[in-house]
Structure formats: C-alpha cells, structure tokens
C-alpha cells in the first residue's frame, strides 16, 4: 500500500522557461538511469530478498525514488509550461511536442521510450544489490552531466540534491550487501 503526500521531497525553483534544459533533464524521468527505472527496480527486487533489512532498504529507497521522479517531473513541467512553439522548436523539443505536447512522458534525453530491459530482477541478492549500487553510481554521473549542462542555478540546486541522494543510497546498498554476506556466512555449515 502506498499513501500520497501532497508535497515534494525537495522545494524546487525554476528561474525561467528553458525547454532545452527540460529536454536534457527528462532523461532522469524515463531514461536508463532515471528515477522510474530506479524505483521499479528496487520495488520489484524486494520480494526475494533473504533478510529483513534488505526488504526494508529496497522498499524505502524504492519509495524515495518515486518522490525523486516527482521532483524531476516538477522541474520539467515548470521549465516548459510557458514555452511558445517557437521556443520549443529552437530547443529541439519539437519531436517530443508532436507526440506529447507539454505532457510528461517516460523518455530519455534522445526521446527513446522507457523499457523494462533497463532493469533486472535476478533473484540472487548479491547480484541484485550489485546492480543497485551500479545504478546509483550511473544516476550520480547523469546528475553530474546535467549539472554541467544546466544554465539555471536554481535548477542546478535541485539537481545537486538529487545527486547527493544517489551517494547516500549507494552507501546504504553497500551496507545491505555486507549484511547479506554476513547472513550467507552464518548459514554455512561445516
């Protein structure tokens, strides 16, 4: 069960209409290392985790990633909501506009739609947690590229917050992996 909270996890500021930046940031909505992929990966891997701490971590981080998805969506929405068709064309967002107007859709920066093959759910907790740690590092890199691309310091502020959360999640997954290894060692009978 999930409850919706009528608030964002982080307060966003958007200085001005900027469809070019929206086109880049949307990859963290529906791209390979984006928040949808992260959330769905963790929430579907949790069922076969062998220890209670791992079930909790995947549930809680998977839930926080949904909140991050909403922050990214709010950024994109506010960056394009007042854009004219001319501005959208000049930013190269016209291909997207032809299919979606200014609606939010799950695509990467180049417009390719989200696919389930971005994620894996292997049933092997060591393999799954390694994938999760890699996912956090890939998301961290993407946020760093987006921070370099951003020409709006207010948007950069939210991107920095999201980047920091990837670092924290990586740390927690690493600790979870250690706990799984301890559990596996404790089960060995000599």
């Amino acid at each position, binding site marked *: 069960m999930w409850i919706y909270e009528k*608030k*964002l996890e982080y307060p*966003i*500021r958007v200085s001005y209409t900027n469809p070019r930046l929206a086109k880049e940031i949307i990859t963290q909505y529906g791209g390979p290392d984006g928040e949808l992929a992260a959330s769905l990966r963790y929430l579907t891997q949790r069922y076969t985790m062998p220890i209670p701490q791992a079930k909790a971590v995947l549930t*809680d981080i998977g839930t926080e990633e949904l909140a991050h998805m909403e922050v990214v969506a709010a950024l994109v929405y506010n960056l394009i909501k007042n854009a004219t068709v001319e501005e959208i064309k000049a930013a190269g967002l016209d291909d997207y506009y032809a299919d979606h107007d200014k609606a939010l859709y799950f695509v990467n920066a180049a417009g390719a739609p989200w696919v389930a093959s971005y994620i894996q759910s292997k049933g092997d907790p060591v393999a799954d947690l390694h994938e999760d740690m890699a996912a956090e590092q890939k998301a961290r890199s993407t946020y760093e590229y987006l921070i370099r691309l951003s020409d709006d310091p207010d948007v950069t502020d939210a991107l920095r917050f999201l980047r920091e959360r990837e670092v*924290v999640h990586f740390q*927690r997954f690493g600790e979870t992996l250690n706990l799984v290894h301890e559990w596996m060692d404790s089960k060995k009978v000599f």
Partner: protein
Amino acid sequence: MDQRRRELLRIMELEFAAIDLNLFLDTHPDELRALADYNAVAQELMRAKTAYESRYGPILNYGQSMSQETWRWVEEPWPWEITFNR
C-alpha cells in the same frame, strides 16, 4: 516567501531528516541515538503537518488525515504547481 510556503518548507526539512534517518536505521537498527533522533523528528513532523493541514487541508490521502468541513484534498495547488522562487 509566503506563510504557506514557509510552513511547507519546514515540513520538507523535518521529513527529509526522517527519510535520511529511516534509511540509516534500516541498515543500523540497533543504533539507539539515531532511533531517538528519528522519534524526535517524527513527533515534530506530526505537529507541523497537523498545523499545516488545519490551514490548507489534508497533506495525506486515504484516511491518513481528516478534512474539515469540505473535502479539501482536491484543492489546488498540487505539489508541482508550487515553486519556491526567490
């Protein structure tokens, strides 16, 4: 910044502390200092939310908050419509 945004910002601050402590506790369930911090933050967060909801309507759906007089859940603005521009 208006009063509503100030109150919302305070809720965001408290809840962020709760989220971060929650994740820490998931892998360190025996850390009693973190647990005490979590419980203190949770209590203050509940107070801040109750005060906010009495003015601006429910912040939680599905029976987690009550709505006074009318069904205020449907009222705008929704979260993506609130920016914190300076």
